[in-house]
């Protein structure tokens, strides 16, 4: 559960690098790189949420708000004011961080259901603001004309280029997060999850750590939002609704929240479900998500990452 082995990481890197080349060989799946971009963007959010839920044991059903804050900050500052997109990304992340502190400080003192409801309410309030502040956000019709990204003249204007951009970011964040988990900070988080009284008695400042992880997850969600905005060049509030926050929950539950790999696995599977496999069954979409979440909660509480352990258990018997 803890020693994050080096081999899987190397394989992961390899897979990311060759994936676009592989799918180029199969015409039927040539839109898969595009879908993987979304999977990567969602992974950024789920990595942070996985740390928050699986390691620190907190819950948030309002993270779509931070995703939206990143997206709209980038969109407004680049489309309306022409500022440098990378700087705007950073501004968005800072804004999300500040909001996360303001909302997190009182919320994370709450436990369980109270915390869930507080994050839920926060998420909806931000969603309403996106819809209502039409002069800033364009309201329900959305905002278009968001520029793409370029680095010193190298334009990320093809699917493949953007794919590599997103997944390099995901990889970097993944490594960073793994480092945190394996450090004293990670230990403190797991201690908080295991026993708050004992963690406190051993000197862990529980509120500080909870807020820290919450801010980290908010900053990552914001980064994801900015990348999303610059990819589609258009955003509208419906992307950042309650159902998206719940989809994030499903990704983490499906992948497995106690293991950082679960965040990526869950994000990839649900993204493909969303954009590719369920596309033809739109009326079933919501039912399928609900069923997945329920079945995973009852039968696979550790998510897909926990399956090898279950199989090992069968062999032992």
């Amino acid at each position, binding site marked *: *559960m*803890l020693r994050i082995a080096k081999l899987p990481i190397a394989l992961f890197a390899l897979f990311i690098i060759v994936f676009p080349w592989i799918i180029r060989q199969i015409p039927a799946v040539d839109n898969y790189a595009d879908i993987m971009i979304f999977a990567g963007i969602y992974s950024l959010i789920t990595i942070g949420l996985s740390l928050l839920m699986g390691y620190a044991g907190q819950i948030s059903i309002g993270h779509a708000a931070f995703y939206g804050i990143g997206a709209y900050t980038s969109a407004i500052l680049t489309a309306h004011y022409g500022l440098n997109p990378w700087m705007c990304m950073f501004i968005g992340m800072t804004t999300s961080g500040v909001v996360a502190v303001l909302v997190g400080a009182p919320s994370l003192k709450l436990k369980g259901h109270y915390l869930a409801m507080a994050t839920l309410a926060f998420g909806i309030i931000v969603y309403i603001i996106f819809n209502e502040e039409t002069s800033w956000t364009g309201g329900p019709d959305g905002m278009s004309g968001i520029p793409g990204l370029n680095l010193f003249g190298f334009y990320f204007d093809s699917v493949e280029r953007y794919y590599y951009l997103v997944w390099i970011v995901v990889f970097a964040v993944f490594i*960073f*997060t793994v*480092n*945190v988990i*394996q*450090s*004293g*900070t*990670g*230990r*403190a988080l*797991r*201690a908080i*999850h*295991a*026993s708050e*009284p*004992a*963690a*406190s*008695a*051993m*000197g*862990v*400042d*529980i509120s500080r750590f909870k807020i*820290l992880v919450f801010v*980290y997850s908010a900053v990552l969600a914001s980064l994801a939002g900015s990348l999303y905005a610059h990819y589609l060049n258009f955003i509208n509030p419906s992307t950042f609704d309650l159902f998206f926050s719940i989809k994030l929950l499903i990704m983490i539950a499906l992948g497995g929240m106690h293991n950082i790999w679960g965040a990526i696995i869950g994000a990839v599977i649900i993204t493909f479900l969303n954009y590719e496999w369920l596309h033809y069954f739109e009326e079933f979409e919501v039912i399928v998500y609900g069923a997945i979440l329920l079945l995973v909660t009852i039968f696979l509480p550790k998510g897909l990452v926990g399956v090898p352990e279950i199989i090992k258990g069968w062999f032992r018997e």
Partner: protein
Amino acid sequence: MNAVGEDNILEIKRLVMTFGGLMALSNLSFQVKRGTIKAVIGPNGAGKTTLFNVITGSFSPTEGSVKFNGSPIEHLKAHKIAGLGISRTFQTVELFGNMTVLENVMLGCHTRIRPSFLISGFRLPQALKQEVRIRENAMKILKFIGLADKFNAPAENLPLGEQKILEIGRALASDPELICLDEPAAGLNETETYVASSLIRAINAKGITILLVEHDMKVIMNISHEIVVLNYGQKIAEGPPEKIQNNPRVIEAYLGSG
């Protein structure tokens, strides 16, 4: 044995703790001399664990003061008190079940390090060096308490006796001046109890003061320098073991009307 200080490492003055209508601690006062082992005993419900919870910062007392090395700590949060040099174990073992034996002890070092999110994330050399130091320190403690060979085992897989020892080891890791042990021998058989008492004596021999709640009278009589007896949240007797043994009020509290 190291020089037993004449000064008081811990001073409890007129401590009162009420929950709703219930008065768990009532006008309680006593001191703990540096370097000694002081036991707190009393029938069930006498307020012993409440006393621990107040000292270690889980609750603030309704009235009264707790002074550690002369400074008042009664309104400080638990994690701050841990940082000042007070450590504890719990009546029902509160290990970190999601970690190994070694990691539990490593967490005990938390107050001695300054874990930084960014520094660990970027894997800067200072973070790595710190981890190595913590790991070495934790292994040393595991050797001291006799669990070194199980360092990689999941903490929750240990038998109860070893879990209790591990919890004491974890409490040692922060290099405390005072350790509060809440029923270290509860649920242990005779061998395990013997191991636990020897360990407590060995810890005290290093100069660490011990405040101990226990029901096992043999353990109490064997290792404590002083005993304070509680009943219904009040102090009914205090003194060295021989005096307490023969104190009629104590005998009555345990056997009698309660």
